[in-house]
């Protein structure tokens, strides 16, 4: 279980890193290595060149509040995301999603930037950031840009990042009157997740004003349940609307199947999680 040979770069600046990645087609940035290194060791993915980015000043872990926006730097680990006070306070769905990633060792190393850049529908944080309408901060050889998370995931392992672009962080506007929940089902912490759901709803007097729902392992990319979100708007949250939302969120899904979950079973789990997330928010509101 050893990787094929590769060339390791340690650039001095972010710009240098971008240029390296741009000019070397088969080069990949290395963040926490918790997705990249296992794939390299299993020899299912073997980039010829690796560009270290974790040491660059712009990438350093950190979470800060800028007005009504939370900014999270790319190298912030899952463990830090889980325990950060700002995130727990304003973006609990993200904190819960980070807490539910794999085991402690992996949460100590894996980063939010890597989790999103991976473009994998089974990454917890992608569902949470979809629910939070985050913006991805990308830096390329020609400068910075912000990519709305809705436009970020293109296909399995394929994102909107252009050649040479590196994720430096994320911006999330603090949602108002928001209730959030993340739920996941897995057979073992370190196994491929069976399904997960991230919900962020704005409530006013028990009526849903706005809703964003992220679904994990539901399609080739992380996706939102847009139809269900639309349905939920201006509805009272109750048993009937919850059932209907879950139904709408999952009825057209064609999730992937594997040894641990058939597509039908996964669909069922997404439906159940959807209901459970909303029910638990309903409970919260009642209290």
């Amino acid at each position, binding site marked *: *279980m*050893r990787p*094929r*040979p590769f060339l390791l770069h340690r650039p001095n600046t972010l710009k240098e890193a971008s240029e390296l990645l741009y000019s070397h087609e088969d080069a990949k940035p290395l963040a926490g290595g918790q997705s990249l290194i*296992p794939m390299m060791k*299993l*020899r299912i993915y073997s980039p010829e060149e690796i560009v270290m980015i974790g040491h660059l000043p712009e990438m350093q872990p950190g979470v800060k509040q800028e007005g009504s926006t939370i900014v999270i730097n790319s190298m912030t680990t899952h463990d830090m995301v889980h325990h950060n006070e700002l995130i727990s306070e304003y973006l609990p769905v993200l904190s819960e999603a980070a807490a539910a990633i794999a085991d402690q060792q992996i949460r100590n190393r894996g980063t939010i930037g890597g989790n999103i850049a991976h473009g994998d529908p089974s990454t917890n944080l992608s569902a949470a950031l979809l629910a939070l309408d985050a913006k991805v901060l990308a830096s390329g050889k020609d400068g910075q840009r912000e990519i709305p998370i809705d436009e970020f995931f293109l296909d399995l392992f394929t994102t909107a990042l252009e050649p040479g672009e590196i994720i430096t962080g994320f911006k999330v506007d603090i949602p108002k009157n928001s209730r959030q929940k993340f739920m996941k*089902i897995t*057979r*073992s*912490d*370190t*196994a*491929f997740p069976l399904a997960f759901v991230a919900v962020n709803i704005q409530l006013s007097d028990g009526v849903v004003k706005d809703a964003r729902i992220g679904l994990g392992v539901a399609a080739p990319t992380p996706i939102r349940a847009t139809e269900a979100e639309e349905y939920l708007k201006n509805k009272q949250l109750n048993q009937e609307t919850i059932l209907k939302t879950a139904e709408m969120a999952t009825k057209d899904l064609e999730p992937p199947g*594997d*040894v*641990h*979950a*058939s597509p*039908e*079973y996964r669909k*069922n*789990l997404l439906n*159940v999680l959807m209901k459970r997330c909303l029910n638990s928010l309903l409970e919260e509101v009642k209290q």
Partner: protein
Amino acid sequence: MPQKAELVVEKAPETTAAFKYMGTPVKVAEDLIPLQGKGQYLDDVEIPGTLYMAYTLSPYGHAKIKKIDTSKCLELPGVHYVLTGEELKANMDPYMQIAPPPSGNLKDYPLAVDKVRYYGEPVAAVVASNAYIAEDAAELVDVEYEPLPVVTDAEDALKEGSPVLHDSVGNNLVWRGVWDLGDAEKALKEADYVVEDTVKTHRYAAVPLETSGVLATYDQSVDTITVYSVNQMPMFSLPIICGALRMPPSKFRMILPPNVGGAFGGKIINFTHITVVAYLSKLLKAPVKYVENRSENIMSGTHNNERIFHVKLAVRKDGRVTGAYMKAVDNCGAYPRYEPAGAVIWAQVVPGIYDVQNVYVDFSQATTNKGPTGPVRGYSRIQHNFMWERMMNRVAQKLNMDPAEVRRLNLIKAEQMPYEGPSRTIYDGGDYHKAFDTLLDTIEYGKWREKQKEARKQGKLIGIGLSAVIDSGANNFAQVKIINPHFPASGSMEVGLVMIDQFGTLVARTGTTDQGQSHATTFGQIVSEVFNTGPENVVFQQGFDSISNVWAAFSGAYASRSAVMAGTALYYAAIRLKEKVLTIAAHALGELESDLEAKDAAVVSMKTDKKLPLGDIATLAWLDVNKLPEDMEPGLVSYAVYKPDFTYNMPDEKKRVNNTLTYSYAIHGTVVEVDPETYEMKILKHGVVSDPGFMINPLVVEGQEMGATLHGISAALMENLEYDEDGILLTSNFWDYLVAGAKHMPDIDMKTIVTRSTSSVLGVRGVGEGGGGPIGSIVNAVEDALQPLGIKLLSSNLSANELYSKANKK
């Protein structure tokens, strides 16, 4: 020291109260070593100039090898050699087969010859200057395959027209044997009910934390190969290897490092790796190392026996089972490497824990395109125990009785002990009813039955399952003669060596190697007891070395035998040494031996209070030897080989033999809740009551039982080697092959009731394997939970995915 031919040693005292050091929960000092990363494992052994080996593996379940092109591989800088099956075939004999012809004609080499027969089978071995290059180079071996039809199911493999794995055999049958014990047919005829069903056990792996590995060096000066390995029975594997390589065993030095990271049976058939690495080290005149990666270990590092039973039980109206009639088909995988031993090992527990004297078993084993099977904790008995536990529930269902009641009715009674089973196994004491009732109390069985009624009203799925299993230990090799009367082994033996060094420290060694079972502490306690001296005065030397260690051909830690076998050998060796020590002391002190006793690292006189420290006695024995009694051999070393009497030592024409020396037993009870929406299964309560016999160290016994319980939970709810119809293993790494860890362990309520073993010298029973107790109780509990949905379970492995599909099929 002259050896006495016959050992006359009184049996150990009857009660634990008589012991000072044995029977106490002495803290296990050696546990800290691996936890602190200080262990010395195989991969920590480093020899300068070592070359590294990697395998090229088969991507097919069954295919003809048309051509192997090694040219690209050999071009890679750093590559020293590429070995293929063709070369091996020209230079070695196929491994000896346990089964007689025709299946004994099977040709088994450590690298595929002409054909690959399972996914992950080694096809070529590449040697390079480091492990990275070796793995790169292994990818460059260009093998041209022609895929062949695949058979993965054992029953299919035995059908006419099935693809045949081994042409030299002609079909896929490894061995078939019929046990016709008592009169099962008559029992069925006279029964009030015949309860019939099919039971399946699934395939999972041993998965030790440390995978298998080998480091071999060749010493040209003495034409000897030194092998460092983790083989569980090195001196038993050695003739298999030497026979194949046509070398005398004395030209092989077998070494095991001080630490082995678990084995669970999975480090026996690794002799294939040893053969290849040894061959290469001699050929290349260089040290060669190979350590299995995790996927290799999961693909072919020993799978357990997958088995299907078609069973009919003869049952009386009152719930008594009077006979059992069954056909069992066992899936051996591609090569019988310890098999078909598993085709008789189950017979250690023919009636399970129940008093059933009429049993008919028609047992066949077949080769299939899956990884090779071999011993995995609970080897071959887990399957049989599971069958009984599933069938007992079927009886309860048929008669509309409580499954606890059915079991109570059929358990062997304390007054029947020692109990001679229909195949002449001698269950060595115990009180099964007491253990069973204790378990029911422990898990609050009655209360949960009430709760279950309430829960069902609310749509909750709660189930309670029971399982009562025999965990036989310390095997009698003669049982293999049932398969092949010419199999050159019978009985069992183990060696103990106790000596006193020049400064008076007691030193102990045995032929078994610790894999995490706390041998140093347990064995130290035995020597302490005999010398009536604290464990600080005893050193147990771990590791194995065939040229300096004591060993017997059966030496090793497997089959739950270390405490029973090595413990007894050490006990005898220590007693012998003590006799000599007392003789020397009597001479030195001018007293009668009968007035002396060993105590606190000295010999003291009960009459005069005079005291001679062991250090002084050691000086006399090792250095100041002219002061020894006349005619006494100098030195303080004693050695004992323990060979137990199994009473029925050899199988008769009805295949009856006492297969093992001890039969511990355990009762498991599980309460589960199944989520009616996700079908996830949660253990709400799990209780175990076992009878390990006398416990030399209760902490160590508890550790073994806990481990076996977790292993069973993992087998039932997680671990599954799943193959597709092309024979591709879908779960070949930890991403898909799920293994329970501490986090998956529910709180376990564990109790022991102790009755001494009537057959082992120290009164202990082997408890290393556990008999797969939790597998039966979990599956029974889940089926019980699902009763409102009318779902019937078949297999020993459960997944929510499967339950969901069952629930939604109807």
